[in-house]
């Protein structure tokens, strides 16, 4: 029974949770969301550029994209964040002042773009070659055909993987604490961790963990929702589908085969 009580006091001390709750809501949550959102946007844009470069016919685009991807996918996130955040701190200081966020966001974006670039590349490559051929046969150039026809389909196919990457990003954002954060710059993890370090009680950290789950669990359900939609086809079409047309039988057969 002593063990149970110790566990309860260590993890479920509602007093300690209550103490850290205002900071978690007012400081930690916004900061974590800022880090994750900014690096998700930047990482997605850079990832698309990497994917397109990686698929380019020119080796001067392809090779740099591959090398970049190998490096930032191969390094531990903590190493990249320290190298960028501490190594470039003198530049950051002159541009942004004593705020580790820009460099933290930069480091997170660099890491995310390497993964997202590979996700986009696999999606784009999975689109049948006939799609680009049909676009070019209409008179579109290769690049316009990619932009209007191939890339939209490729991105659609990898949306679940992309959302998974966003989830990883939310969690990795906690690593910016390496860069030394002022009280108002602390993210969810750092606030929970500070409280735990000061009191020897992990309850605040557990609460911080619950905040992460509040962000990430809905995202996983978004993944599942997108995935099932991609599998079953679009709802809209099911209602528009009508069987009054000709070639009735084959229509049913092709639906079955899909």
């Amino acid at each position: 029974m002593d063990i149970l009580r110790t566990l309860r006091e260590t993890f479920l001390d509602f007093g300690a949770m209550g103490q850290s709750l205002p900071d978690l809501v007012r400081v930690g949550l916004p900061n974590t969301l800022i880090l994750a959102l900014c690096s998700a946007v930047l990482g997605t844009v850079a990832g698309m550029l990497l994917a397109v470069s990686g698929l380019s016919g020119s080796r001067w685009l392809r090779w740099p994209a591959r090398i970049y991807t190998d490096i930032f996918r191969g390094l531990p996130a903590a190493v990249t964040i320290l190298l960028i955040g501490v190594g470039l701190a003198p530049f950051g200081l002159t541009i942004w002042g004593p705020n580790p966020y820009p460099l933290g966001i930069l480091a997170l974006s660099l890491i995310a773009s390497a993964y997202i670039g590979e996700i986009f590349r696999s999606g784009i490559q999975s689109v049948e070659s006939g799609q680009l051929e049909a676009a070019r046969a209409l008179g579109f150039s290769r690049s316009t055909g990619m932009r209007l026809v191939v890339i939209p389909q490729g991105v659609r196919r990898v949306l679940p993987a992309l959302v998974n990457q966003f989830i990883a990003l939310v969690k990795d954002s906690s690593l910016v604490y390496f860069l030394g954060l002022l009280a108002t710059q602390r993210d969810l993890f750092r606030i929970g961790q500070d409280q735990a370090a000061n009191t020897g009680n992990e309850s605040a950290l557990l609460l911080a963990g619950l905040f992460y789950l509040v962000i990430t669990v809905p995202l996983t359900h978004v993944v599942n929702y997108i995935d099932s939609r991609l599998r079953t086809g679009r709802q809209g079409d099911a209602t528009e589908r009508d069987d009054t047309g000709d070639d009735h039988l084959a229509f049913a057969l092709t639906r079955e085969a899909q």
Partner: protein
Amino acid sequence: MSAIAPGKSKVVSAQPLIAAPSSVATRDVHFAFGANKVLRGVNLDVKGGTAACIIGPSGSGKSTLLRCVNRLLEPDRGEINIGGRSVMGDDPDALRQRVGMVFQHFNLFPHKTVLANITLGLRKLRGLSREEADATALAQLDRVGLRHKSQVRPGTLSGGQQQRVAIARALSMSPEVMLFDEATSALDPELVKGVLATIADLAGEGMTLLVVTHEMGFARRVANTVHFMDHGQVVESGPPEALFEAASSRRLREFLSQVL
């Protein structure tokens, strides 16, 4: 994607459905995939406004030849003439706007509605407004009998319907020449008829058609000329009755004995 709402729609004139048909000629066209010489000096003449069926065994270079005509593949050597003029110096993207192509596997854009499949080229390449493009596209869908499917996605259509949409998409650009690459080979047998009828209609309207096909009955009925390809060359050309009834080459006789 807004349908043209009845009563609300502006009156917009559709583009002419057919541009003046052009002749097609290839002169000593060579093409190789690496070491694999697929075309070995193809000479082909198709008069403007006539239907030419290209027949021959698998791997004889029929589909590759079609792709050289609109320069989806660049010939290694030789000349393509359309409308009596070489197109080898033309901008290939501009050339392909003048030459429509229909594929074995339809290659409709699955993320776009049927209507948007057809209007994409009209709006982005021809610069038509949404109303003009919709009107042109609906006119083409009327022609293949699928106006009522304009708002669905291609994946919900049967193979035959998808191929007719693909034909409408190619026609919407008012091509001078239409290329058909085994347009019925991927279809269930009962759907072949509808697509062939659509192609036969185009022949009847006086379009220039190059049709790669395994449908010998269709070639015999609809084609003005039939061209037999084997090993990357046109071995024999002529009116269908001459080729099918009195083949002069042994290779064509062998081929016909296998497929008829």
